[in-house]
């Protein structure tokens, strides 16, 4: 049985973390020093000084995430991001929020001292968060791939697709992203839309990703993908989309938006415009993971073929390795060996069920490999994105 942490806004978390957020790179060291006192305190933030609406929305969504029970914002005091406004927005979710401004506190040592006092008090409050039973129907599961090779499309991703079908059938919520890795597949993807609006939104999201990739002249395919047997973005896309399983897709959401109802959703992380006349197509895997978490993902399932070691702040990351040779080399980082499908004749259904069961165990408190190793990567870039209105 999963015992969720009941938040004041009614959401249920599967972890009970405290979040320390730096609102500019200048306050990141102090934030890390405050967070280092207790393993349940996660440090993250936005590096830019010039404020960004997207990044601010992201920090509010992460501070109000169900796995987070309280937030300490650490500001330098002169950056563009308004820590007080962020605090107000997160407080509306009922989470306790504190703000420290390093310039007001008198520098590094007084801020760290005061921050550690505040964190100690908030950790005591976290112990008193009520627990309520929850089922798979209450879970939001994100899926992403990184360090892909040509095994990803035949083992790890279709196995995650089977797990995604099980989640949807259990009345849960699944989110896949990476529309930049759906290029060339828009008709196949649009055909999966649960209704005409979903189909239209899915086609538009993939076409937007194609236009953006051509504009910035970057396609989401890296040298390691090609060394691993993926010749083109179209080939990578077909393999990546296998993570979606077979159930109807309810529609498209944007970063920091919660799916309006249960079922399978596609997250569009692509910028709607490029404020500086340039942009990344796909900054890195940690950005994608954090995007899924900003939409409420309790757990992110991450597939790899070449090998990856990353975890995340806030939500556990489960790593599914589709390449049996990589698994043999990096088993210390992998939670599931989907390479058994290639090397040992295991079926996609068997491995899909194993992933589903591991999601349930992780939700019940069992740590993932990345959690045990202490991986807490995150990445928030400058970006401009308009929200979808799915309500």
């Amino acid at each position, binding site marked *: 049985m999963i015992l969720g942490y009941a938040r004041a806004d009614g959401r249920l978390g599967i972890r009970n973390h405290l979040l320390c957020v730096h609102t500019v790179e200048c306050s990141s060291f102090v934030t890390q020093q405050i967070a280092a006192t207790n393993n349940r305190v996660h440090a993250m933030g936005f590096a830019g000084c010039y404020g960004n609406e997207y990044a601010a929305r992201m920090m509010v969504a992460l501070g109000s995430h169900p796995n987070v029970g309280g937030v300490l914002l650490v500001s330098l005091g002169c950056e563009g991001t308004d820590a007080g406004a962020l605090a107000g927005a997160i407080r509306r979710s009922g989470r306790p929020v504190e703000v420290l401004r390093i310039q007001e506190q008198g520098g590094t040592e007084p801020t760290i001292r005061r921050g550690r006092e505040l964190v100690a008090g908030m950790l005591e409050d976290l112990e008193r968060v009520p627990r309520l039973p929850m089922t798979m129907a209450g879970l939001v599961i994100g899926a992403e791939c990184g360090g892909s090779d040509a*095994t990803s499309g035949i083992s790890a991703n279709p196995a995650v697709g089977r797990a995604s079908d099980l989640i949807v059938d259990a009345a849960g919520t699944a989110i896949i992203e990476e529309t930049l890795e759906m290029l*060339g597949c828009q008709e196949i993807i649009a055909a999966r839309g649960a209704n005409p609006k979903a189909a239209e939104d899915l086609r538009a999201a993939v076409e937007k990703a194609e236009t953006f990739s*051509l504009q910035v002249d970057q*396609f989401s395919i890296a040298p390691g993908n090609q060394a691993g047997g993926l010749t083109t973005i179209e080939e990578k896309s*077909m393999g990546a989309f296998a993570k979606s399983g077979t159930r109807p897709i309810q529609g498209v959401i944007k970063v920091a938006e919660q799916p309006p109802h249960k079922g399978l959703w596609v997250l569009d992380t692509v910028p709607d415009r490029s404020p500086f006349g340039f942009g990344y197509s796909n900054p890195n895997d940690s950005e994608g993971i954090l995007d899924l978490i900003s939409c409420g993902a309790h757990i992110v399932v991450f597939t790899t073929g070449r090998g990856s070691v990353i975890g995340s702040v806030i939500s556990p990351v489960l790593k599914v390795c589709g390449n049996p040779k990589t698994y043999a080399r990096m088993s210390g980082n992998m939670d599931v060996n989907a390479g058994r499908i290639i090397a040992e004749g295991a079926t996609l259904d068997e491995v899909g069920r194993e992933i589903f069961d591991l999601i349930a165990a992780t939700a019940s408190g069992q740590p993932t490999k990345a959690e045990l190793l202490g991986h807490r990567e995150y990445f928030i870039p400058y970006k401009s994105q308009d929200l979808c209105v799915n309500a």
Partner: protein
Amino acid sequence: MSSAVSELKALRIDPRDNVAVALDDIAPGSQVLIQGLTLEVLDRVPFAHKMAIRPIAAGEPILKYGVPIAVATVSIRPGGWVHEHNARSYFAAKRKVEP
């Protein structure tokens, strides 16, 4: 080198495909059996890479998962390794800078 035909060395994902995926490193001259088709592999095909299972003319699509995933830039013989040296993305023609 063994002359035995290996059955588990390559996978054709969709019946429409004109390539198969190597399930191990395959040496040139190997015979592989792919869903009833015996193929002599012409090149070294690394694990998870693709080989042609039918003749593919220049300009023809490379079909994997039953869909075009690339276009052949030169003609490719059955058993030939298929990768960036003889196939490219359909998006390549639309790019500002040729890779």
